[in-house]
């Protein structure tokens, strides 16, 4: 399931729903991303997340389908927020349930790595009166490429 929303989400309830009523599930793996108040030496007052409505949903559905194609999974969940977010706020939640832990760990990592380099979101960091678009990191692209090149242990 994917959700692209402005409002916050309840981490515990969302993660619990991945195994609720399904006793085939042996493990659930979840990753949540939060807004930090410091980037390098710079203090961040708040952040605005922009996205491309339509393409975002399409892209997340594709990433989710690819995870199901690669691993035997029970359920997957991607929640990504947009709009104004304060330090400490939740930005993203990726969670996976599976019969065994290996698939859950790997698929969870895959989902967040792929999302970071493919889903059309852009972060604008605001400090005082200044705002600055965040620059994409090479390390994120490399993390995604490792899955494409197939040299990650599965």
């Amino acid at each position, binding site marked *: 399931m994917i959700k692209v929303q402005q409002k916050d989400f309840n981490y515990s309830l969302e993660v619990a729903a991945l195994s609720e009523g399904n006793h085939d599930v042996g493990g659930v793996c979840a990753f949540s*991303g939060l807004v930090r108040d410091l980037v390098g030496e710079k203090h961040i007052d708040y952040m605005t*997340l*922009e*996205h*491309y409505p*339509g*393409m975002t949903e*399409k*892209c997340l559905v594709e990433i989710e389908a690819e995870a199901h194609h690669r691993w035997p999974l029970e359920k997957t969940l991607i929640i*990504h927020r947009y709009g104004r977010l304060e330090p400490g706020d939740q*930005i*993203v939640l990726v969670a996976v349930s599976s019969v065994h832990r290996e698939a859950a760990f790997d698929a969870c990592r895959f989902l*967040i790595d792929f*999302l*970071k*380099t*493919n*889903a*059309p*979101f*852009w*972060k*604008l960091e605001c400090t005082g009166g200044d705002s600055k*678009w*965040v*620059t*994409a990191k090479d390390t*994120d*692209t490399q993390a995604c490429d490792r899955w494409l090149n197939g040299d990650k242990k599965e």
Partner: protein
Amino acid sequence: MKILYFSWVRDRIDLGNEEIVLPENVTTVEQLVNWLQSKGDGYASAFADLSMIRVAVNQEHVKLGHPIGENDEVAFFPPVTGG
């Protein structure tokens, strides 16, 4: 054709989206970029370094050489920074 701009590409052009009539000799994204570059300083600034530009046609990531037609939706944006 509908064109959308996001993040600092939109800021530099000062426009979120626009409808254009595709010139006859423009058949790829790259040719569209060349045509847009001549539309004004904001466009020239946004498209000054094409290594920083990513493109989607009909909401799918594509390369600059991708073919385009009048009914396509084309979007220009910097590398994504979500998650």
